[in-house]
């Protein structure tokens, strides 16, 4: 009965075959670095809850929405196609099941923050996924397309906030996760900010392009 208002954060990570090798190793390291960084921030520790959803030929929630202090990073492996539409549907289901809404007697959670990382074009029906996430309350979806095969037009259909990174090097991945970590910190910091202002996310890393 005395729930705190959480900041739910969902990471949607592409684990298709093209991510194998250096990229997925970098993703695994990136999550690790993200968690260790956030664990040093008291605002994030008190409010942020993290979940990981992965997708290849299908999509699944690998880590349910978990308290930061209890979060154990999953070991991700790759293979298969790019079921991005499916991932969005899983996301919609998770938000429906896990995120608490405000009632007269209970504080609801903050709107979830979603970070999507993909390196290719979706191989399933993306429109169904987009429909699904429209039906739930999500604060910001930030989509990051990595490498030459990522399609910014497709990502733009999901969200207005699209970042492109040119390649899939370990260095770029590390930068991406560092930026995600900064964004979560800024968001947990802005939780009591008054409206009238959009939450300002930190500037994206060098070499990342914001798709207008």
């Amino acid at each position, binding site marked *: 009965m005395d729930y705190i208002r959480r900041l739910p954060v969902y990471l949607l990570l592409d684990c298709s075959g093209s991510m194998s090798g250096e990229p997925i190793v970098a993703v695994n390291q990136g999550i690790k670095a993200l968690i260790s960084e956030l664990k040093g921030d008291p605002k994030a520790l008190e409010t942020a809850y993290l979940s990981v959803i992965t997708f290849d030929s299908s999509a699944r929630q690998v880590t349910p929405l978990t308290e930061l202090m209890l979060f154990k990073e999953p070991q991700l492996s790759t293979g298969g196609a790019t079921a991005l539409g499916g991932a969005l549907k899983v996301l919609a289901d*998770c938000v429906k099941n896990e995120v608490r809404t405000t009632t007269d007697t209970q504080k609801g959670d903050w709107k979830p923050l979603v970070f999507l990382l993909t390196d290719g074009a979706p191989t399933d029906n993306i429109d169904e996924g987009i429909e699904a996430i429209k039906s739930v309350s999500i604060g910001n979806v930030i989509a990051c397309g990595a490498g030459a095969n990522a399609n910014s037009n497709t990502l733009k259909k999901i969200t207005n906030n699209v970042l492109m990174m040119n390649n899939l090097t370990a260095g770029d991945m590390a930068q991406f996760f560092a930026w995600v970590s900064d964004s979560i910190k800024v968001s947990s910091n802005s939780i009591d900010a008054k409206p009238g202002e959009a939450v300002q996310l930190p500037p994206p890393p060098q070499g990342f392009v914001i798709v207008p």
Partner: protein
Amino acid sequence: MEKSDLKPTADIPEDSAKTLVWQERAEPAANKSPAPETDKPDGEPMKIKQPSGASRLYSDAAKSFSTLNRAGENFAAGAAAVKAAAENTVKELPKKIERAGAAIAARTKPKTDLTKSEPPKAPAAAKAEQSAKTAPETKRPPETPAKPAEEKHLSDREVMEHTASIWQYKSIADDGTEQHSEYHEKRVKAPFAEIIGARVRGKKHKHDGTNCDDYFETALTEDCAISVVCDGAGSRTLSRIGARVSAETAAGYLKSSLTELFGKEADLKSKLSADMNAPEFMEGCGMIAALVRDSAREAFAAQQNELKKLSVDEKYTKALGRPAVISDLSCTFLAAVVVPLEINGARQALTVSVQIGDGCICTIDSRAGSESCLRLIGEADSGKFSGETDFISEKNIVPDVIGSKTRVGRSTADIIMLMTDGVADDYFPAQHMMKRLYLDLCLNGILPMAGELTAGEDPAPIRYRSVSMSQQSVALQYAKQLLNPDDPNAINALWDKREMLRCHSLEAFRMNIGDSPEERLRVWLDNYNERGSFDDRAITVIRLPRDEKDDI
């Protein structure tokens, strides 16, 4: 005004994602584009019309009454309520609380089950859907399976004990702009009322080395107690200045105008003591309501005057990266005037208040039972989403709007509290939990506590390291510890046995957190720990003597 991107879930507009703003890459402040607000940067100063005749005042009163009527709850006034005697309106409350209690019972239970035991259904469902239509599955080693949610659970206290060591204390960075003190506490006292107030810098601002944006001011006239509390917009770096000028100006205006009014209208108190149906009662209320409303307009006028200074001051232009605009001074505005009355030998208090934006104004009758002791006055404009609020602005100080935010009532309450959301959010839902706030103030020696003083009984006060220069730990008692978490009606049960709770007070444990009530209020405000609560906090408590023997 745009809405914050960070909203709790519910009714989010579909295009909300559009409002996300990418911050400029770190560049000299001067290159930042000015805020897109359309507020007039230095509009002509507001003309404040002084109420002139009784008839006009009467219609003002009727306006605020009819609004009240529409809002239709909690407080004993309004055209309809005026028809009912004061005691009749009190009778409404038990039913409401009963209903609310049932609602909690209905809602809390399934919710608990959901989070504690139900594993997320999503993966399985989604997988089934997917395999039906995607390309053939590639065989690959299974990933770490999804663990059931919260197989291990950390209590809020465990998390806070951990974060207590991580919060940093940084003194306020001086950038040449107006700096506010780390904290402030104040007490004013007269035979008929005492007001204590305090504000403290939130942990977030301590961690970041930034100013406290909350401000309060209190005052007493020969007849009235006055309190104004303002919360500067968190996203505006100069909002603390808006909060200060608003609180100081409104309290000052109320003090002088009320002194004048009571001097001029010799029979005002008897009007206010009249039957609540009587025209003279409404007339009297109307006079005070007009002043309270005007205090908000005075506050906004003062913001505009302040802006004239700031917008041509290089230090501010440098700090902002552009000239200051009126919205840089945005703050909430909560003001209350309390007139203690004696009606047929019984003590009552007339309360006239206005609330713009979030926070809470409530009255408590410390002698009443749990079902009728608490009334919330005014509504936070935040609606469903807390964290969204309204500020004093040109549009909401026009007579119709400000009238709709004005509340008048008379009751047997002896405690009137005003607070910013930094406190109110920790006592959610306010219609029940403001009782817990009152008990916390008693348990920690800030308000007097009835009952026999014995040796301390468990649960003992909880000690956390303070986020301060000294880092010493401060033990505080929490009424929450005494609540049965499974009983939605627990707060009412606790309230009704409050005279037996003194054994849990700091005093019973031979602890004392300050030499005066206001110091204890400030130390408590600065140190009580609530998970996810790191905003600035400000609260004022007006206390009226309960009877001749009650010495304040």
